[in-house]
C-alpha cells in the first residue's frame, strides 16, 4: 500500500493544543492511582478543569483542591461555589488554619512568607492528608521566566523542593516518572500562552470570573489574593475585547502581581520551596 509522503493538516492549532493537554491529563490519570488537581478559579486552572472534563467525557474523576488563603476576592468564592455545583466537583478546600488563627497575612509579614505559609504549607498539609501521588496544575511556560523552565511531569522531593537545576530529562512526550519522587506535578497547559487560553475560553465558552472583565476602566489580568493583585487600566469588558487587547498589549501578564516585583528571584525561591 502506498501513501503520499506529505499532507495537509485538517485540525486547527487550538484543537491540537487541546489534544496535547488532554493527552497529558490522561497520561497522568493512567499512571497514578491518587490524582488531584489544583483550582484557583483563575482563567488557566478553569481552562484546565474544562480540559479535564473533556478528557473524561464530562466528568472530573478526582478531587479538585482550592488552596484557600482566605484573602481571595469574593467573586472568586462565588465563582467556585457555582461551578463546583454545576460541574459536580469533588471540591476540597485546603487552608492553613493554624497560620490563619495566628493572624498570618500580607500586612503582618512580608509577602514571600505569607505566600509560603498560606499557599505552600496549606498545599503540603492537603497532600499529606489526601495522599496524592500526582497533582495537575494550570501553569504555563509563557507566564514567568522560571515557569518557562518547567517540565510536563515534574517530580517533587519529600520536603516538596523543586531542584530546577537538576530536573530529569523529558524527551518528546515520553514522560518519565522517576521512582524517588514523593509526588509529581503535572502541567498540561505548559505549551499555551495567555492569548491561547483566552482564545480557547472564547471558542469553548468556558465560564469567566467577572474580575477579568473591565468595570470603570479597570480589570484584573491575573487574579489571586485581593491585597496582592492590582487591576490594570483596561476597557476590555468581554472575552473578545480581552483577546483584542492582548493582541496589541506590550505589558507582561503578571505586571499586577506584588510577589513578583519585590525581588527578581522571588518566584524562583517560592517555587523551589514547593509553590505552584
Amino acid at each position, binding site marked *: 500500500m502506498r*501513501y503520499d509522503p*506529505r499532507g495537509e493538516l485538517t485540525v486547527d492549532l487550538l484543537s491540537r493544543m487541546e489534544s496535547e493537554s488532554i493527552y497529558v491529563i490522561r497520561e497522568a490519570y493512567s499512571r497514578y492511582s491518587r490524582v488531584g488537581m489544583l483550582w484557583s478559579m483563575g482563567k488557566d486552572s478553569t481552562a484546565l478543569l474544562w480540559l479535564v472534563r473533556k478528557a473524561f467525557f464530562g466528568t472530573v474523576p478526582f478531587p479538585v483542591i482550592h488552596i484557600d488563603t482566605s484573602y481571595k476576592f469574593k467573586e472568586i468564592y462565588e465563582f467556585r461555589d457555582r461551578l463546583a455545583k454545576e460541574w459536580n466537583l469533588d471540591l476540597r478546600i485546603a487552608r492553613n488554619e493554624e497560620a490563619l488563627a495566628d493572624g498570618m497575612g500580607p500586612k503582618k509579614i512580608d509577602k514571600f512568607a505569607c505566600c509560603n505559609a498560606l499557599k505552600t504549607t496549606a498545599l503540603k498539609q492537603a497532600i499529606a492528608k489526601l495522599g496524592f501521588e500526582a497533582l495537575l496544575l494550570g501553569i504555563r511556560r509563557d507566564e514567568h521566566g522560571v515557569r518557562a523552565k518547567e517540565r510536563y511531569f515534574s517530580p517533587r522531593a519529600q520536603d516538596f523542593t523543586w531542584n530546577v537545576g537538576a530536573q530529569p530529562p523529558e524527551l518528546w512526550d515520553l514522560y518519565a516518572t522517576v521512582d524517588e519522587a514523593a509526588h509529581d506535578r503535572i502541567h498540561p497547559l505548559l505549551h499555551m500562552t495567555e492569548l491561547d487560553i483566552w482564545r480557547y475560553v472564547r471558542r469553548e465558552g468556558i465560564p469567566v470570573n467577572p474580575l477579568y472583565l473591565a468595570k470603570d476602566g479597570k480589570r484584573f489580568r491575573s487574579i489571586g489574593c485581593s491585597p496582592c493583585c492590582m487591576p490594570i487600566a483596561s476597557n476590555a469588558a468581554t472575552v473578545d475585547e480581552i483577546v483584542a487587547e492582548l493582541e496589541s498589549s506590550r505589558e507582561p501578564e503578571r505586571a499586577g502581581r506584588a510577589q513578583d516585583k519585590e525581588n527578581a528571584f522571588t518566584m524562583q525561591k517560592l517555587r523551589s520551596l514547593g509553590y505552584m
Partner: protein
Amino acid sequence: MSPLATRADEKPLVRIAMVGHVDHGKSTLIGRIRHEMSGLPGIASVDASVGGNWAFVMDQLQEEREREMTIDTTQTFLETPVCRLVFIDVPGHQELIQNMLSGATRADAAVLVLAGDEGVQVQTRRHALLLSMLGIRTVIVAVNKMDTLARQEDAFRRLEHTAAEELRALGITVTATIPVVAREGDNVVDRSPAMAWYQGPSVMEAIGELEPATVPVDAARFPVQAVFRHDGHSTVVGRVLSGSVAEGDALTVCPGGAAVRVRTVRRFPEDHAAAEPGESVGLILDGPEPVRGDVLAPAADLPRSTRTPAGRVFWLAERPLEVGEELALRCATQVVEVRVESVTERLDSATLEPLPEGRALASMELANVRLSAQSPVVLESFDRLAALGRFVLERGGAAAGFGIVA
C-alpha cells in the same frame, strides 16, 4: 509528526531550538531577538532586570545570572501578525546535555550558533549530531561574535565552509549561514550596514523562510493510552499519530492481532465521526478489548511487532549501559522490560570517531543497540513515523538514553 504543526489557513508556528557550544551566544541571540521584537504589538517588553545583558531574557534563575551560563532549557513565545515563534534555549555545557535534549526534542527547526573567535567546538559537533538523530535536518547557522573578527568577510567564509562540511557529513542541510553580532543586533532582525559585503538574510528573515512542518499521510496508528470505565462505558482513549480513525473502521490490535471495529468516536461535549492526526479521542470498540500500550492499525498495513527491538542509541546517564543489563523501554504508550543483547558500532559524539568494540556504552556515546523484550514491541522506522520510531531507555523511572529506529 510535529504535534503543533499548523493548518494552511493559520499563522505558521515554528519552534526553533538555539543550539551550539557553551558561551557561543545562544541565549544572547534569543534575548536580542526578543528585545528587538518587543516593539511589535502583542509582544511584552523585556523586563528591566535584564539591563542590556540579552542572555538574561532567557537566563532567569539566580544561579544562571550569577554564573552567566544557561543551566536549564527554557522557552519564549512570540506571536506577530504573520507568524508564531517559540524559541527554545538550551544549555551548551556537556554536563547539561539532558537539558539540551529536553528542549531540542520539542523543536521543529534549529539555529546552530557558532562563535567567530572559536569556530566549531566539541559541543557544536555534538549538538549537530543530536539534531540529525532527532530528525531536525534543516538548520540555520549563525556565526556570532563577528566583532572579534573585525566583521571581515574572509574569516566568515572560512567558518561558513567548515560548518557546511561538518553538517553535510551528518546529513544536515544548511539553509543560510549568517554573520551576526548578537549583542549589538547585527543581522539579527535587520541587515547590518557594518557588514555590507553580506547579501543574505538576517536570522529572523531566515527563520521566516523556513518551511512549516507538515503531517505525513499514512495508515492509521492509534496507540492505546488507557481504557476508561469511570462513566459506565469502556472507552479506549489515545491520540491518533497518523491516518484517521472513523466510525465503522475495522482495525487490528497490535501486537496480538485481534480484530476490532470502531462503534463510536467519543469526545465531549459532542461525538464526531472521525479523528485526525494529533487528536486525542476515545473509541468505543466492538471486539476484544485492547490494553494500554497496544497500537490499533488497519490489517492491510500493520506496524512491526518485535521481541528484538534495536536502534541507534545515545546514552545520557553517568553509569554506562552494559550488555546484559535489564531496563525499561518506553515508546509511545508502551513500556516493556528489555535486556541489552549487544552494543556495536560505537561512536564518540565529541569527535564523531568510531570507538573500539566493547560491551558497554558510556555517557555521550552512541551505538547500535540490540535488545530482547519480554513482550513484543510495536515499532515503525523513525523516518516513516517518528512517534513510533523513537524510544527512551529508563532506569529507575528516569530517562537514561534514547534510541532511533532504522
